[in-house]
Structures are given as structure tokens and as C-alpha cells.
């Protein structure tokens, strides 16, 4: 976003040179408004100085934002990596079935509330839309649950009839399991689903975040699939303790699985957001530095040209007086 501002500023310099009328009033020779001998327009040094000051301020702000994002990233990264252990046993038990064909899918899109974080929100929305296309058809239904302001704004434009829930302000307090589980509870109570597909940015490293889909099935579908066979078919070989039936246990497991997967997804998305913000702010500081260099060159050229012009006038005036003597 900052980059676009810089580019617009750069382009604005050229029209300001070309658009000044040629029949300009002969203003007194101050350092502000100048015309060269051949009618060449030059930018006033005052304007360039102002622009340099604002670019320098922007550079300081983006550098500060990068450092803030770096420190927040350090804090969340450890927690995200530790929380991966929460859903791994579920995948070992129930398997991961992203290609399962169900009637009602709910796509949970995770995004950030704040901006200036690069392209992560748009990639998540792209994947969500692709899932929608994949899973819609006769008798099949896809609904969206949107977490975060940014995805809400993007999805509102063309998919607003398919949104069933939207959640904001999740990042106001530091993320914890209680918060995410209350959210998961709300989603479970309000939306009917056969399969939940959670779309988030998985954090691989500070510069690499890949949009990922995690699938959680509802207990009825798990029962149906376990009859078909495969990984889920081995569920019957497990012994069930206590007085609960298999259907009971599956329901508890499915809910808990959803809560754990959401927790991990929210943490990973937060990490990716910080990482993306770091790299976005880094590149905008670098661009601001380059722009500052270019402006400094322009400023010096203008300054030297004005000094040269003054010297020429003084000398020619003096030599005219000499000749007149």
C-alpha cells in the first residue's frame, strides 16, 4: 500500500513540470521559482525538500512497524509450533480426507483484522473461492464462516449470499485456547455441516507461508466412512473404555478435533501475518530509501543549477558594467 503511494508521488512530479504555462510572470529571482535560460522548467527546492521529509518519516514508520512485527512473531512462533502437537494424534487416528465428497461443506476462512501485511489475505480468499467451486453442485451446499475483517471485506463483494457467520476482533487479547474453543463452539452450534474445511496460512518460515486446508468431518460422516473401510475402518479395532458408545466417542472426538485444529490454524495464521507484515514493511522501507536517494540527487541538481544561474547573472551584470565604463 505504501508502495502505491510512492509511485503516485513520483508520477506527480512530471506533470507538475510540464503543466506550468510558458508565459510565466517574471518573478524576482528567489530560490523558489526559477526559469532556466531556455525556458526549461525546474522543480523548486522547497517542494523537493518537503517530499524528502515526508519520505523519510514514512521510512522511519515502516522500519518501526517491521521491528514490532518481528518481536510479535518471536512470541507467537513458539506457541504455534507447540500447538501442532494438538491435532497430530487426530490425523493419526482419523486420517486426513481433503477430497471427501459431502453434501454440506462449511469453509472457515481465517484472515487478519489489520492491513499492511502483504498478500496473505487475498491468497486465503482465493483458496476459499476455489473450494467453493470444487464443492458446489447439485445437492451440494457450501457456506462460509469468515474470521477477520480483511476477508470479510473481500468476500462481501461477490460471495455475500453464502456467508453464514463472521467473526472479528479475535486478536484483541493474546490468543489462547479458551477463546478459540468458545469460537469453535459458536460455529458448531450455528452451522450445520458435514465437513468443515478450515483455510489458513501455514507458517513454514519467515518468508514462506502457504495457504493450507484442514478438513474436519462431522461424526455422522465418520461413521459412514468407517463402514466403507480404509483408515477410518480401523476404528473398530480400538477398545472403548467407559460406558460410552462409539457414536458418542466420535462426536466428542469430532468436536475436540475441530477445536484443536482451529487453535493451531489461528496461531499459524497469526504467525504468517506477522511474517508477511515484516517483509512488506521491509520492502517498503527499502523503496523509501531508494526514493530518498533519487530525491536527494534531484535536490542537489536543482540547488546547483540555481547557484550557477545566480553566478552567471552576477558575472554578466558585472562585465556589462565594465564594458560600459
Amino acid at each position, binding site marked *: 500500500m505504501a508502495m502505491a503511494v510512492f509511485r503516485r508521488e513520483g508520477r506527480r512530479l512530471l506533470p507538475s513540470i510540464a503543466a506550468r504555462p510558458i508565459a510565466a510572470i517574471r518573478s524576482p529571482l528567489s530560490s523558489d521559482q526559477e526559469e532556466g535560460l531556455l525556458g526549461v522548467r525546474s522543480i523548486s527546492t522547497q517542494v523537493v525538500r518537503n517530499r524528502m521529509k515526508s519520505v523519510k518519516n514514512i521510512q522511519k514508520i515502516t522500519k518501526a512497524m517491521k521491528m514490532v512485527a518481528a518481536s510479535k512473531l518471536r512470541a507467537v512462533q513458539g506457541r504455534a509450533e507447540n500447538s501442532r502437537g494438538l491435532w497430530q494424534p487426530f490425523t493419526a487416528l482419523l486420517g486426513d480426507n481433503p477430497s471427501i465428497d459431502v453434501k454440506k461443506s462449511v469453509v472457515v476462512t481465517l484472515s487478519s483484522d489489520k492491513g499492511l501485511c502483504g498478500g496473505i489475505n487475498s491468497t486465503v480468499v482465493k483458496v476459499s473461492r476455489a473450494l467453493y467451486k470444487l464443492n458446489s453442485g447439485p445437492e451440494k451446499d457450501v457456506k462460509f464462516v469468515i474470521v477477520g475483517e480483511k476477508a470479510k471485506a473481500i468476500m462481501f463483494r461477490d460471495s455475500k449470499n453464502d456467508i453464514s457467520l463472521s*467473526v472479528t476482533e479475535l486478536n484483541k487479547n493474546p490468543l489462547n485456547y*479458551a477463546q478459540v474453543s*468458545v469460537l469453535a463452539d*459458536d460455529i458448531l452450534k450455528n452451522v450445520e455441516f458435514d465437513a468443515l474445511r478450515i483455510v489458513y496460512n501455514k507458517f513454514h518460515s519467515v518468508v514462506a507461508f502457504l495457504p493450507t486446508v484442514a478438513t474436519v468431518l462431522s461424526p455422522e460422516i465418520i461413521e459412514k466412512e468407517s463402514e466403507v473401510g480404509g483408515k477410518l475402518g480401523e476404528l473398530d479395532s480400538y477398545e472403548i473404555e467407559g460406558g*460410552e458408545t462409539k457414536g458418542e466417542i466420535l462426536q466428542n472426538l469430532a468436536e475436540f478435533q475441530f477445536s484443536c485444529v482451529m487453535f493451531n490454524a489461528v496461531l499459524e495464521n497469526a504467525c504468517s501475518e506477522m511474517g508477511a507484515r515484516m517483509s512488506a514493511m521491509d520492502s517498503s522501507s527499502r523503496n523509501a530509501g531508494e526514493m530518498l536517494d533519487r530525491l536527494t540527487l534531484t535536490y542537489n541538481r536543482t540547488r546547483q543549477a540555481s547557484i550557477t544561474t545566480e553566478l552567471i547573472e552576477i558575472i554578466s551584470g558585472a562585465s556589462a558594467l565594465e564594458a560600459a565604463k
Partner: protein
Amino acid sequence: MASNAAVPFWRAAGMTYISYSNICANLVRNCLKEPFKAEALNREKVHFSISKWAGGKPEKPILRSDTPGV
């Protein structure tokens, strides 16, 4: 398709497993001594705002705040 075993009391009361385990976790956290208790209860703070959508329009958002384990 009635199950033979009785449904656990919390399931009959309309709670999901998630809310049940949250309430149990809250009870465990309350058993701690100070200062660990304050730290642990700090980890339970909930705050987000959720709004249902009907027909492409969001309804009034509900703010869920500081209600751990519900």
C-alpha cells in the same frame, strides 16, 4: 437409533464436549494458588465479536467477552 448407554448429563443439557472441557479446565485453574492462579486465569480471557448473516446482510454483532468456559 437410540443408543443403549445413557447420554452423559452435559450432552443432555445441550452442551458440547468443548464447553464441558472448558468448564472443567476452569475448575482446575481455580484450584491453583496465587500467583499462579492469576496467571492461569489470564490465559482464559475471551474476546471476539461474532455476527450471523442472513441473506447477504450481517445482523447485529454479538460481543463475547470474558466469558471463559461458556
